[in-house]
């Protein structure tokens, strides 16, 4: 049974520095990070334990900033995906990741959703983690012990579970400028056109060599296992080959085989497996096409 929010006992805190936020979170085990709250408030309404303190990260400039030093982008963990989608540099260098960012909910949600929230919420069906992972994104994490940097792939450890320690928050993401002839793509399957949770998500990043053969490939699937799964067999099948024909068939088969899905209200094992293969194949095709176009332009 769902509940109204019983929030009169809850305290709202809006630190303006990372250190303050870490202190607040470290001092109270029932404190919760409040970024977009697009998942948090519905979760509380559905009966999750209520936090005592909501620590709003959105007044910390560093967490909302998007910048680049020419070789690496730094994207605040709470930067609204609407801003990410409107960022020309990111859109040009990471079209798939930006598409994935734009798929999180409605325009209303886009004002609030962020990579940090999407990753730290640790839903297996989250849209951006597969794309963050194929792009080798790193998460800068701050906590009582200072800052550390880990691969985005290492943050979520299971449904609702992360490797973040007590009092730790994701501060920002680092993304290296991709090499030449490289592009990514993300596709997801939802029953409607909008407003749904992914039944399957597939991200691919492809680097082509001068002959159009695949020089590097990364494929990651969402909503088909407790955490995002990479598909090394598909990646291996692509390397050194043109991304077409039988090779794509191998990608599809490997992706389907790499899944470990569940039956739930949103999908069945068989459906998720079959469609994961289809979306992985299509994502590879789109990424490769984009990479080739980059080659044409350069």
């Amino acid at each position: 049974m769902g509940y109204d929010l019983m929030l009169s006992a809850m305290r709202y805190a809006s630190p303006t520095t990372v250190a303050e936020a870490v202190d607040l979170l470290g001092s109270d085990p029932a404190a919760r990070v409040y970024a977009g709250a697009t998942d948090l408030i519905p979760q509380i309404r559905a009966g999750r334990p209520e936090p005592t303190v909501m620590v709003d990260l959105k007044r910390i400039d560093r967490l909302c900033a998007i910048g680049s030093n020419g070789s690496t982008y730094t994207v605040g963990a709470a930067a609204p995906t609407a801003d990410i989608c409107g960022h020309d540099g990111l859109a040009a260098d990471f079209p798939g990741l930006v598409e994935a960012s734009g798929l999180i909910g409605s325009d209303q949600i886009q004002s609030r959703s962020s990579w940090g929230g999407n990753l730290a919420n640790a839903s297996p069906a989250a849209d951006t983690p597969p794309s963050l992972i194929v792009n080798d994104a790193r998460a800068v994490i701050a906590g009582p012990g200072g800052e550390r940097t880990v691969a985005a792939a290492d943050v979520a450890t299971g449904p609702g579970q992360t490797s973040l320690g007590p009092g730790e928050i994701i501060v920002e993401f680092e993304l290296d400028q991709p090499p030449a002839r490289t592009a990514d793509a993300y596709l997801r399957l939802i029953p409607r056109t909008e407003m749904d949770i992914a039944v399957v998500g597939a991200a691919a990043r492809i680097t082509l060599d001068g002959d159009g053969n695949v020089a590097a490939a990364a494929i990651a699937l969402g909503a088909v296992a407790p955490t995002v799964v990479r598909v090394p067999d598909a990646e291996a099948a692509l390397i050194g080959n043109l991304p077409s024909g039988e090779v794509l068939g191998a990608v599809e088969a490997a992706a389907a085989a790499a899944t470990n899905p569940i039956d739930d209200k949103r999908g069945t094992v068989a459906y998720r497996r079959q469609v994961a293969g289809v979306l992985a194949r299509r994502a590879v095709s789109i990424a490769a096409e984009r990479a080739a176009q980059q080659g044409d332009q350069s």
Partner: protein
Amino acid sequence: MTVTESKPSYKYVGTRPVRHDGLEKVTGRARFAADLNMSGQLHGIVVRSPHAHARIVSIDTSDAEAMDGVKAVITGDDFPAVDPSHRQYDMCINVIARDKVLYEGHAVAAVAASTRDQAQAAAAAVKVEYEVLPAVLTIDQAMAPGAPLLHAHMMTAGANPPAEEPSNISNVTRFSGGELDAGFAEADLVIEREFTTQPVHQGYIEPHACVADTGQDGHTTIWCSSQGHFNVRSSTATLLGWENSRIRVIPAEIGGGFGGKTTIYLEPLAVALSAKAGRPVKMVMTRDEVFRATGPAPGTKLRIKLGVKSDGDLVAGDAYLIYTNGAYAGPGGLLGAMTVFESYKIPNFEIEALDVVINTARSAAYRAPAAPLTAYAMETMLDEIAEELGIDPIDFRIQNAVTEGDPSTMGFPFARIGFVECLEAVRDHPNYKAPLGPNQGRGVAAGYWFNIGESSSATVNLNEDGTATVVTGSPDIGGSRASMALMAAEELGIDVYDIRPVVGDTEAVGFTDVTEGSRATFATGMAVVEACRRMVVELRGRAAKMMGVDVDDIDWMDGQAVYTGSDGEKAPLSVAEITAKAKRTGGPLTATGSLEAHGAGPGFAVHLCDLEVDPETGVVRVVRYTASQDAGTAIHPSYVEGQIQGGVAQGVGWALNEEYIYDSDGVMENPSFLDYRVPVASDLPMIDAIIVEVPNPAHPYGVRGVGETGIVPPIPAVANAIYDATGCRIRDLPMSPIRVLDAITSNGGSNGS
């Protein structure tokens, strides 16, 4: 686009003025139920069962009562006992459980406290001890031998021979005509198909809400949104054991209903809490509560067998329909039986329909109740037969369509109806022959709904300045104020913007039945016309006095009293001139109309759906949609189109993605708009609405109800289009990507019949 049979030309009827309540609604000032607050009000929260089926052993409210801010706690014991033979027994024990809970979300107690948080905390502190009983969650489980009984007293009504033992089958309905065996013997082609469908929710955006203020004098005022405030009054009175006159219900604006607000849930609880606390009590459901505890339309299992001659004449039909209306008896099976063969000439038929109870929320009416499901079965089978016989699907339907004089399933001959006109309108629309792209398909389907009359009241008051107020008892659920004003303008000859249409409360206007059965513009419109015609008689009399002539020499023309006698020229008198002298000619100008409306005209609709299927994922996207419907006469064509378009959207959602999902204990798994997937704007194309006008001879302006029929054809139209695109016949709802892909994969894309 409008296809019109000859009709009189009107000055106002058929025009598209801005609705009178529009300004409030685009500025945020319109007051819906949850927008109302009373001085000193408390907040009420319902305690709901976590079990689908359980005996209530005990309820201990003492902890809750002792909590901060708590002013009242009530349980079923606070209401009079109700006998199972009572006409509204089901409604009564649904609003608050007595000895048993029958579904997850069933109300068992309610709490009122100073704040919502306090009420929420107290609700959680109400201790209910349950003896959990095995839950019956499917039609098959309910009908299995030895199935646990939901209602110990339930004997199947209509059973022949009469039922001797109680069961979960609440009633059986049988219709027949001709000789079934002989009919099938005559047939050149016989097909038999089975279908299953799941419960779906009406999905109105406004959750149920009310405020009740019970005074020390034992009278109460309820502010709430509903499809009929007189029904709120009588149902609340029934539950409380009160006289109706102790209850006044003031209608708030209603944020969608579609049938789901023809019954009540919160109001008696709010009144009882308010009476106990001596303060006003406001109650607002969460979306989660709306899904779990209100409204679904029935789920079904359907089996139909049709026989047809090779020339395309249908000769025999056999239908076995099982509806489940949730935990209580319901009309699904009866209405399914009345609609399944209604649109076609089938000389030999038998229909058997069962209503079965299971441990899920009590069904409420949903737009043309039961009919979309029988249409799903029938119209997809007709599509199959047309293809088999090589006949165009619309021509096949025209060949078999009922027309004036043909007998209905119930035996009576149809009056003038517009079914064939609707079929022709779609056949002649450019959409029907437009080329389709790859992986696209086109489906056509028809739908039928009765529409109903019932009681309505209206009062017309002429104001001192010659403008008019039209008060009716029908909540305005989708533009009916504008329709009332248009008909009044036409009758009185007053500009439509000089008429103020108002929804009166239960003490301000005569009794009016619930807005259901597409009856508001039809029946309440008739009451408005009656009141206006009486007003015109009065106006002519007043004018005669003012002119000093005989009333028989006064005509009412274009908003003026015109002297037609031979005693020279006399200047006509306008409404304003007459009302200005009302004090001197007999007093205020008021007229009422109240009636039981006879002659509701059946509504027919024909839809055409183009869609595209992703053959590798099963995802279906509707790309073009055209819908015709016989409105009789469209009073305000924009809102007629709106009803058609809204019905299409709901039907498409029902076809593709909407369904209640329960876990193995009967707990609803998708009680949110995230996982209960109603269509969003990007899921739909523009919907081309064709208004067909074959006037209903029983209505002064020829109106047929238009609210419901539009939801009937979309499911089969979508199903037929999916078949056209994929070669797969899908006979289970919803036709979700999973089901579509499964069908494509297992059929290898070939004909799935």
